[in-house]
């Protein structure tokens, strides 16, 4: 459905761009690759800096003031993140380096807890490689089978498909939002079906947590993985949330300093949550910056962010649909897209599209988007992908359209 005048007016305005140094410093830059990594507001970069200028000390085990302050900042961040995703208990928030590590942790530690010969792990065909290869690996290690939920022609996982989750399934792991198609899965339904079958439900929230209000209670899942760098925080910090009962039952993943209660030559007693899963010195600067990134989003309000980004996604999908030489890969309806829209310029290789757009300082992504099985399933080798965040506005989409018309001209005289 095309945008109303009011809706259009609201995305012609942009009160956010000025907060983002890279965008503010490059007025001509059209950044439509937030699904790869977002930009960071000044306040977030400042928070990391402040950490190193005032609290810079190893957060755990220290008895002096700097160290104690660093610990307190880390624990405040944990509490805020827990609240932000609707988790009951900050101790259920595990800091990792990125969503990939979160998913590796889940796959390996849960796999060792739950998987035996002949058991099954179920994922969807739209998974990012980071929610796919770790399951291939642990299935191979435990003698389990990896099976897939496929998409119908409407890019949905149908009821029939969900019915394939059998009692042999011990783990179901799916993405909430596809990083290629931009479509959302009905996590509540999938989690319910998983639990019915007696399986644990893991959710890859890398493309959802930055964009839509998240409530793990309502989703009904057992684990949620996401990355700071896709939600206005710096690179190098990620999160895994899991239910206390499962986290307590699971063996640790990385081992070493700070994650133990006691160590002898031949054994160790693990520390309580969350330390048990946080070996070695944590990324203190990244943690406080993620805290500040969430504060920035909360300051705007996730409902406002969600609404604005939905309008941007609709405007993007509409604009692409209106170009006769563009094929959208995924649903045409803008309403179905969260953040990302994949497309091709007819007859032009996506890499050429991206290079030609770059010459007009329009940044999009081209390739398999770390989702090769999905692309194969869709009969594609690679696609273009444009993705939006709250700091985009209608002019970015106009500039993309101009750039694509130029691409078409270059290739078709």
């Amino acid at each position, binding site marked *: 459905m095309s945008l109303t005048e009011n809706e259009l007016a609201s995305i012609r305005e942009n009160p956010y761009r000025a907060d983002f140094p890279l965008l503010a410093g490059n007025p001509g830059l059209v950044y439509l690759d937030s699904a790869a990594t977002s930009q960071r507001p000044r306040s977030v970069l400042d928070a990391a800096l402040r950490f190193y200028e005032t609290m810079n000390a190893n957060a755990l085990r220290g008895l002096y003031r700097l160290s104690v302050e660093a610990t307190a900042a880390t624990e405040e961040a944990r509490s805020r993140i827990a609240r932000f995703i609707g988790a009951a208990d900050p101790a259920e928030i595990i800091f990792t380096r990125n969503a990939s590590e979160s998913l590796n942790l889940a796959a390996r530690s849960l796999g060792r807890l739950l998987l035996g010969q002949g058991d099954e792990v179920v994922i969807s065909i739209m998974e990012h490689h980071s929610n796919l290869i770790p399951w291939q690996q642990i299935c191979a290690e435990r003698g389990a089978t990896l099976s897939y939920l496929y998409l119908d022609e409407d890019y949905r996982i149908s009821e029939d498909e969900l019915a394939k989750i059998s009692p042999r399934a011990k783990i179901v792991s799916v993405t909430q939002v596809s990083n290629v198609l931009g479509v959302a899965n009905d996590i509540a339904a999938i989690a319910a079906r998983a639990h019915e079958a007696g399986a644990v439900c893991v959710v890859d929230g890398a493309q959802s947590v930055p964009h839509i209000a998240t409530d793990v209670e309502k989703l009904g899942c057992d684990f949620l993985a996401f990355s700071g760098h896709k939600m206005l925080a710096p690179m190098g910090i990620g999160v895994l949330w899991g239910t206390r009962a499962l986290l307590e039952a699971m063996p640790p993943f990385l081992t070493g300093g700070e994650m133990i209660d006691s160590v002898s030559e031949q054994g160790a007693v693990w520390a*309580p949550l969350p330390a048990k899963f946080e070996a070695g010195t944590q990324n203190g600067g990244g943690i406080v910056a993620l805290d500040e990134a969430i504060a920035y989003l909360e300051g705007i309000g996730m409902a406002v962010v969600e609404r604005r980004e939905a309008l941007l996604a609709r405007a993007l999908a509409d604009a692409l649909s209106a170009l006769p030489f563009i094929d959208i890969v995924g649903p045409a309806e803008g309403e179905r897209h969260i953040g990302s829209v994949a497309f091709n310029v007819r007859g032009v290789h996506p890499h050429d599209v991206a290079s030609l757009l770059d010459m007009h300082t329009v940044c999009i992504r081209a390739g398999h988007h770390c989702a090769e099985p999905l692309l194969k399933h869709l009969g594609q080798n690679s696609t273009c992908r444009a993705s939006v965040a709250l700091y985009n506005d209608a002019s970015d989409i106009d500039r993309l359209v101009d750039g694509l018309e130029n691409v078409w001209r270059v290739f078709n005289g």
Partner: protein
Amino acid sequence: MAELDLYNAQFMDHVHNPDYKYQMEDATCSHEGINPSCGDELTFSIRLADSGTIEEAAFTGRGCAISQASADIMSDLVIDKTPEEAVGLCRLFMGMVRGEITDADELERLDEAVLLRDISHMPARVKCAELAWRTLEEMLEKRCPDTASAEVGRHG
């Protein structure tokens, strides 16, 4: 800095000359608490009078000055209290050192233990100050008959 006062003469006297650090002969019950990150170990014992109040309290073990002084001060405080009253005092103390309870009137019930109030500004030492109190609370809440050991503070 408020913490500068912590290691004062009154506090150090509990460290150097504890009144209640000895092996109790005829304990009604004993309970062991450890603080794994510090290596502190403490066994706390009480003897209940026929009336049900705590008649004698004592501890053994090793640890830092804060855990030792705290144990000595606590022993003095809980004598002649009922187990229920003692549990209430333990909770009050823990609220104080965690900075959750700051009302001076309320804290008055802790008597000399108010000495340790500034621990709330030293989060890394809260576990040291709490060790005795958590051990006692756990012992009394288990209704005390056991003399099994348990690790207090293990999963806090």
